[in-house]
C-alpha cells in the first residue's frame, strides 16, 4: 500500500494520520503532546507503523502545527505548512463548498473564511487564549468532571446561565459566583459554552461574514455543548466532520501529496526515526546585543538543525556544512 503521512504537532495534542492515494484516511492517532513534541511524534510514528500493513510505502510527509519546523526536521517532511492553511485545505477537501471554518484548539482559536474553495480571510486569537480547549479542560477538572462528559452535561442545560466570557479569569470567578448562588451544573456549563461562543464570535469572528456550510473543527468540536451554542448564536447548522480532531494532520497529508505530485521523491527518513535519539539544546549567542536564544537539534549525537538566530549566523553555518 502507498500513501501519505500528515503530522500536526500542537500545544496540547499531536495528531498523525495516514491517507491512501485516493485521500481516504486509513489510520488516525490523537496523542497528548505533554510538552515533548519530539517524543510525542516518535511515539506516534511507532504506533501508526504498527497499525499499518507491512510494506507500506510512505510517498510523502507533511507537518503542521506549532511544532511543524521541529517535526519537519526530525521526520524529513516534504511539506511544512502553518496550521491555518492546513485546516483550510482539510476542510475544503472533506466538506466541499465549505465557506466558514470555526476551529478551536488547545491554545488557539481561528476562523477561516473560504469562497470558491480559496481562503479569502482568516483571523486567529492574538493576545488572549480565553475560550480555547485548555480553559475548558481546566474548568472541567475544577468541577471534577471528565472533559469528555462536558458537552453532554451542557446539552442537558435548559436555561443557560449568563456568564461573563470576555476574559477567562473573569469567566471563572463569575462561574464560581453562579455556583455559590445555587444554579445547577448543567445550566452553568451550558452558559459557559454560550459565553465562549460569544467571546469567539466577538474577538475572533469580528466583522467576518459567516456563510454556510459552516464547519466546526479542532479538539473542542468534540464538545456537543459548544456545537449547539454555535448553532444558536449564528442560526445555522454547524457540521462537525468525522476527523474533526485531526483536521490539521489531514491537511498536512494533502499538502504533502501536492508537494510530491510532480514526481519529487519524498524526504521521509522512514519509521526508524522513532528509535533514534534526539536531543534539543539551546544556548544564548553573545555575538551582538540581540542575545538570540539559539536552539539546536541533534540526531544520534550529530547536530542536524539550528534555529532562533536572527542574523542566520548559526543556521547558515550548518547549511554550509561546517557545524561542530
Amino acid at each position, binding site marked *: 500500500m502507498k500513501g501519505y503521512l500528515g503530522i500536526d504537532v500542537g500545544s496540547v495534542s499531536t495528531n498523525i494520520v495516514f491517507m491512501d492515494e485516493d485521500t481516504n484516511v486509513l489510520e488516525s492517532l490523537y496523542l497528548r503532546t505533554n510538552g515533548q513534541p519530539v517524543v510525542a511524534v516518535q511515539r506516534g510514528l511507532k504506533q501508526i507503523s504498527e497499525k499499518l500493513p507491512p510494506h507500506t510505502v510512505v510517498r510523502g510527509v507533511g507537518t503542521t502545527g506549532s511544532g511543524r519546523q521541529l517535526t519537519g526536521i526530525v521526520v524529513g517532511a516534504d511539506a511544512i*505548512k*502553518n496550521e*491555518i492553511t492546513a485546516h483550510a485545505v482539510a476542510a475544503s477537501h472533506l466538506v466541499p463548498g465549505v465557506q466558514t471554518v470555526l476551529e478551536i484548539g488547545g491554545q488557539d482559536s481561528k476562523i477561516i473564511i473560504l469562497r470558491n474553495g480559496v481562503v*479569502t*480571510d*482568516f483571523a486567529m486569537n492574538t493576545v488572549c487564549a480565553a475560550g480555547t480547549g485548555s480553559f475548558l479542560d481546566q474548568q472541567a477538572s475544577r468541577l471534577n468532571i471528565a472533559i469528555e462528559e462536558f458537552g453532554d452535561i451542557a446539552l442537558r442545560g435548559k436555561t443557560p446561565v449568563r456568564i461573563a466570557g470576555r476574559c477567562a479569569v473573569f469567566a471563572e470567578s463569575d462561574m464560581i459566583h453562579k455556583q455559590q448562588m445555587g444554579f445547577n451544573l448543567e445550566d452553568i456549563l451550558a452558559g459557559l459554552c454560550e459565553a465562549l461562543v460569544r467571546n469567539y464570535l466577538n474577538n475572533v469572528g469580528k*466583522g467576518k461574514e459567516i456563510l454556510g456550510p459552516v464547519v466546526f473543527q479542532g479538539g473542542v468540536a468534540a464538545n456537543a455543548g459548544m456545537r449547539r451554542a454555535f448553532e444558536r448564536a449564528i442560526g445555522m447548522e454547524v457540521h462537525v466532520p468525522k476527523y474533526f480532531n485531526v483536521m490539521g494532520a489531514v491537511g498536512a497529508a494533502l499538502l504533502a501529496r501536492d508537494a510530491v505530485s510532480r514526481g519529487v521523491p519524498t524526504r521521509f527518513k522512514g519509521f526508524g526515526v522513532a528509535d533514534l535519539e534526539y536531543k534539543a539544546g539551546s544556548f544564548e549567542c553573545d555575538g551582538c546585543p540581540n542575545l538570540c536564544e539559539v536552539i539546536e537539534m541533534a540526531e544520534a549525537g550529530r547536530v542536524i538543525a539550528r534555529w532562533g538566530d*536572527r*542574523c542566520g549566523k548559526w543556521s547558515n553555518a550548518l547549511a554550509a556544512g561546517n557545524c561542530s
Partner: protein
Amino acid sequence: MKVTFPHMGYMYVSLKGMLEYLDIEVVVPPPCSKRTLDLGMKHSPEFACLPLKLNIGNFIEARELGADTIMMAGGCGPCRFGYYAYVENEILKDLNIHYNLVVLEPPEKHIGELLGRIRKITGNRPWIKVIKALRFGYLKARAVDEVEQMSFQIRPRELVRGATDRALQEAVDEIERAKKPEEIPFALNRAREIMEAVPADMSRPVLKVALVGEIYTLLEPFSNVNIERHLGYLGVEVERSMMLSQWINDHLFMGLVKNVPSSERFKKVASPYLCHFVGGHGEETVGAAVWYARQGFDGAIQVLPFTCMPEIVAQSILPKVSGDTGLPVMTLIMDEHSGEAGMITRLEAFIDLLHKRKEQKEVLASW
C-alpha cells in the same frame, strides 16, 4: 548633562547626531532586549501599553550608563502617549531614579515653539546652531529611512539569508558616523553602496504588503517581533506607512519640509470610513489601507500594541475598507510575548492567502 531618550527603531541615529552636533553628551540606551522588557514590566502598570513598558526599561538601563536627562516627545489628544513622558518620570521617581525631564510637545502654531521647548537642553547655544542641529537630525533620519526602504526591497530577493540585515546595520552605522551636515551625502552614498552590494536576484517576483498601524510598534523591531524581517524571508516586499523622517516633519516641524511623503495623503482618503481624528494614528491607519489598496498592494497588516485605543477604532473599520477595496487586511496585536513562532504562523497563512488570490487574479487576467 548626559541626555538619553527612549528607543524607537533607528531614531537614536537622528537624536544622537542632533545632540552631539550641539556638543551635548548623549547616552544611547542599550538596544531593547528581554532585560529591557523585564525591567519595564516590573515597574509599569499592567494595563499600560507595550511602548510605556519598553520606555521605562530604556530609562533604567540608560541610568546605569550615567544618563541624567530624558528627552522625549509628548503630545495631546486621545492617545495616552501624550502623558507617557510625565507618567514615566513619576514611576522613575518612585524608584529613586531622578531625571531632568524635557518633553518635546508638538508645536501648536509654529516650529518656533519647538525651539523654545528644546531650550532646556540647548541652553545658551545660539539659535542658528540649534536650528542647524535640528536640520542635521532630520537629514540623518531621512538618510536612515532611505536605506531602510532599500532593505525592504532587497530582503525578499537576497540570495543569502541575513545578508540584508547585516548590510543594513553597516549602512546605518555609516550614517551614524557622520558628524556634520556636510558629511551626510558622502555617508549616504557609502550606505547605498553597502546595500547595493548585497547579492540579490532583483527580478524575483515578490508580493507587496503594506505595514500600517501604530508608530512605535511599526518602528521598533523589538516590539513587533521583527515583522519586517520575517515578511522579507517569506518573499514579501514591505512598505511601512510611517517612516521616522515623515513623522518628524509632520508633527514636530508642522510640515515645514515640502515635497516629501506626508501622512496627509492617508488622511485625505480616510473619509468616508473615518472622517475624524481619533487619537494616535487611527485615522492614518484607515486612510493608509485605502491608499495602499489603490496603489495595487497585495495586502496590508495592521500592527498595534495591546490596549491601543486609536488603533482599536481603526481595527473595527478595516474590515469595511477591506470588503470595499478587496485588499486583504490582517491585524497583529503586540504585547509582552517575545515568541516569534505564533506570529510567523499568522504571517505564513496570510501570505498563502495573498499568493492564492494573486494566482486567481492572474488566471482571470489571462482570459
